[in-house]
């Protein structure tokens, strides 16, 4: 970190700094304030917002119907995070410890899905899982099944879609974390007659913790608020928070309740992010 006392910045630099600050205040902080404000207001007769203060919307969050959706979402997000960690680790290790030339190739291959259209990547699973999709066509052709299996619009489909969608978010931080582990530590473990399994258990996995934490947050938060995946692969029947919020805003037009839901989602996400950033920060300082 560079510190310049009494640093003079050219005018355009200072201007863009303050302009960017103003922009984010107006179009990021202010909208979040609007969400908070509307969540404390009442629903108008025809779907608008009536500025009558109430906690009713937050009280409705405790409704068992809503509680079930929150629990479902948290469950899905946790499972997604767990599966991403388990599935992502071998790939991350392979990339982190590849020879320099191969590393570039693997890293590029991991980067591309990270930046590729999420909607399209989810849609690809519709093509694979639907009644006349790839899996069912294969099963029918091979004579394993005589009727197409109901694969799409199931919890399994949503789970697979979430893992598929957010896996790169776990793999990239893991690669960074594993690369920071000096390979000599692994050599030392082997020299001391550790088996491959023991080496991973006692050396690589504990030292990859910051990567697991960072990746965990990056997977958990968006899966908690996922909207595309439960909509396309779950058929929107079994709701998650994301689909519920979308419905409150665009279908039921109950903005105050939708805002309370959004705030519940943001609160959950922020608390988690805060806790984890403290934890992994402690690890980094160490």
């Amino acid at each position, binding site marked *: 970190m560079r510190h310049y006392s009494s640093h003079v910045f050219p005018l355009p630099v200072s201007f863009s700094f303050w302009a960017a600050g103003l922009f984010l205040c107006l179009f990021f902080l202010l909208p979040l304030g609007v969400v908070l404000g509307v969540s404390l207001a009442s629903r108008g007769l025809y779907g608008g917002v009536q500025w009558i203060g109430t906690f009713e919307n937050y009280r409705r969050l405790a409704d068992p119907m809503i509680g079930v959706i929150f629990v479902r979402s948290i469950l899905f997000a946790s499972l997604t995070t767990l599966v991403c960690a388990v599935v992502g680790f071998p790939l991350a290790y392979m990339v982190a410890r590849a020879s320099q030339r191969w590393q570039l190739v693997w890293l590029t291959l991991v980067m591309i899905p990270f930046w*590729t*259209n999420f909607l399209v990547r989810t849609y690809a699973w519709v093509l694979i899982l639907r009644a006349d999709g790839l899996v069912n066509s294969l099963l029918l052709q091979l004579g394993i099944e005589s009727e197409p299996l109901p694969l799409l619009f199931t919890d399994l489909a949503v789970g697979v879609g979430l893992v598929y969608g957010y896996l790169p978010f776990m793999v990239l931080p893991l690669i960074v974390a594993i690369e920071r582990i000096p390979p000599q530590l692994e050599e030392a473990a082997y020299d001391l007659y550790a088996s491959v399994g023991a080496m991973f258990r006692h050396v690589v996995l504990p030292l990859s913790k910051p990567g697991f934490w960072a990746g965990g947050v990056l997977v958990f938060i968006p899966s908690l608020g996922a909207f595309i995946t439960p909509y396309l692969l779950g058929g929107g029947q079994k709701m998650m928070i994301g689909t519920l919020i979308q419905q409150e805003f665009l279908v039921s037009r109950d903005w105050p309740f939708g805002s309370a839901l959004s705030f519940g989602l943001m609160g959950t996400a922020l608390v988690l992010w805060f806790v984890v950033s403290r934890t992994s920060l402690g690890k980094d300082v160490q």
Partner: protein
Amino acid sequence: MRRLPGPIILSGGLVMVFLYFPILVLMGLSLNASTMGVAWKGFSLQWYAKLLGNPAMIEAAVNSLIIAFTSTSLSLLLGIGTAIRLEQQQSRHTSWMMAIIVLPLVIPEILLGVALLMLFVLCQIPLGFGSMIIGHMVFNLPLTVVILRARLRKMDPAWEEAARDLGATPWKVLTCITLPMLRPAIWGAALLSFTVSLDDFVVTFFVAGPGATTLPLKVFSMIKTGITPEVNALSAILVVVSMCCVGLSWIVHQRANAQSSTPSSS
């Protein structure tokens, strides 16, 4: 160095297949002459031809490009200075700024969407190009700043210090040293935020007006009304475009890392 354990290579390879298999299925089906199902009925580009012949599709593509280009340019305009200022001077302002820059990248996207929707509607700002460009800037600006800052942190401060010691004005240092050294990262950031903007669905979905539609919105509405081979072709186009942009930014990034970072080399 010791060879990688077999099970790691096997499972890592399988996960890589898992990452690419659906994308390949999608691309394959977009080239399939069959109108229904997945049975291969021969190679055909007819679905692409059909897309190109559809004026509504061309309009959506143009809209997407305009929005992505504008939000990327404006984000660069504000982001370059912000990143430089954040990296070179730490103060109370900058730590606040860092917080509001990171937040849009970590909160669930659907929140950004509904928050902006309510702001625009309550302030009676019409939904359309303007609202979509602003919406995209809310994530493109932070993305640009984060990428540029990572690059600035790796740059050797000695060049700027030397220029200052030799009597260069701050403006001269900025234009002759900092910006040329930052150029590859600027291109990289531009390509990535262009891609993210082109691909964005959730925020766009909430702040889009009735008039203007973008390609991802088109994909979504087509999936809702029924899966046709045209959706596959459109999706495949989107995937290929993002792959090209990401690949290009990756090459720029690698070049920048390979070069010894000197102001004269770019």
